[in-house]
């Protein structure tokens, strides 16, 4: 009886350790660091799709709805000072490159919706802005802070990434790369 109990306890312990080990392996295998870290290895990465609530309007902002068009994807928050500095640059790029089919999409993150709406109004942003309170989109892109900008080509692949605020030159270079494919 005691021997059977001992064997059961040992088997349970081994199963528990094996389970925890499997969980660790799964976690390590599935946390690739998102698009940003894969892109650093030098290859275009399929852009993870998303569908977010549209800020200040009904409906959704869905990446799939811009299929076949280059997309400049900008993660921002209203409390972020560099985000405010780059907002006008992004809006100007949207107007400049729109005839080429380029679309700018803003993703507001870690923010109050009221603040984000004021931010959009204050900086005259007319491009679509979505809002996320969960980390799924942000994690899939490997965003570590705001602002960060990704450039998606016509084939739906991320071809360039700018961590931190973007300049006119960054935007032109990224958009040209997205248009080249």
């Amino acid at each position, binding site marked *: 009886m*005691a021997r059977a*109990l001992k064997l059961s*306890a040992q088997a349970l312990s081994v199963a528990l350790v094996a389970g925890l080990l499997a969980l660790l392996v799964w976690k390590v295998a599935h946390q690739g660091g998102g698009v940003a870290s894969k892109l650093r290895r030098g290859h275009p990465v399929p852009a993870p799709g998303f569908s977010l609530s549209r800020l200040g309007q009904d409906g959704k902002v869905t990446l799939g709805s811009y299929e076949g068009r280059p997309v400049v994807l900008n993660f921002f*928050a*209203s*409390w*972020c*000072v560099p985000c405010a500095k780059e907002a006008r640059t992004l809006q100007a790029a949207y107007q400049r490159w729109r005839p080429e089919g380029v679309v700018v999409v803003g993703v507001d993150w*870690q*923010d*109050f*919706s009221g*603040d984000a709406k004021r931010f959009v109004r204050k900086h005259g942003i007319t491009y679509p802005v979505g809002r996320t*309170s*969960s*980390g799924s989109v942000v994690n899939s892109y490997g965003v570590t*802070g705001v602002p960060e900008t990704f450039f998606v080509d016509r084939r739906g692949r991320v071809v360039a990434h700018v961590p931190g605020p973007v300049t006119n030159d960054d935007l032109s270079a990224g958009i040209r790369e997205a248009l080249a494919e």
Partner: protein
Amino acid sequence: MRLLLAAAVLALALAAPATASESHPTLAELESRVMCPVCKTTLDQSNSAAAQRIEAVIRQKIAAGETRSGIEQDLVEQFGPAILAAPPHRGFDLLAWWLPIAALVGGGLVLGAAVWHWSRVRERDPEPSPSNTVLPEGAGGGTDGAAGIDPELERRLDEELARFDA
């Protein structure tokens, strides 16, 4: 009766501050219950722009007379459940509260059972000790001090003593 009365007084004493904290929360209290979404620490340990903005909103809500749970609920709607430092006491999140307690109780039970089992085994098969060691017949002599002495050692001791006497 006295015990019941004491329990009731204790319950009231504990409930009063909890109710006050719910209806009149302070900024310091909420700062330790709410996370800064950027730096992943509680607000009271962060000085980031995001934390400062959240603190300002909390201050406004306290001034407007909102309850603690109301403020926390608003923050969860804006930032998601990860904005709270501790998981809520409902649904799947209950696991985070009860699993450690269950593990502690389970571990204690297993340890208790093991100790009980080992003590039973020791009672059944006691280890040999000098008091219950059975020596060969004639060995050890009759004195208490000689009990348990190896016969070979005793023989050598006798020889040495005899040589010393001679």
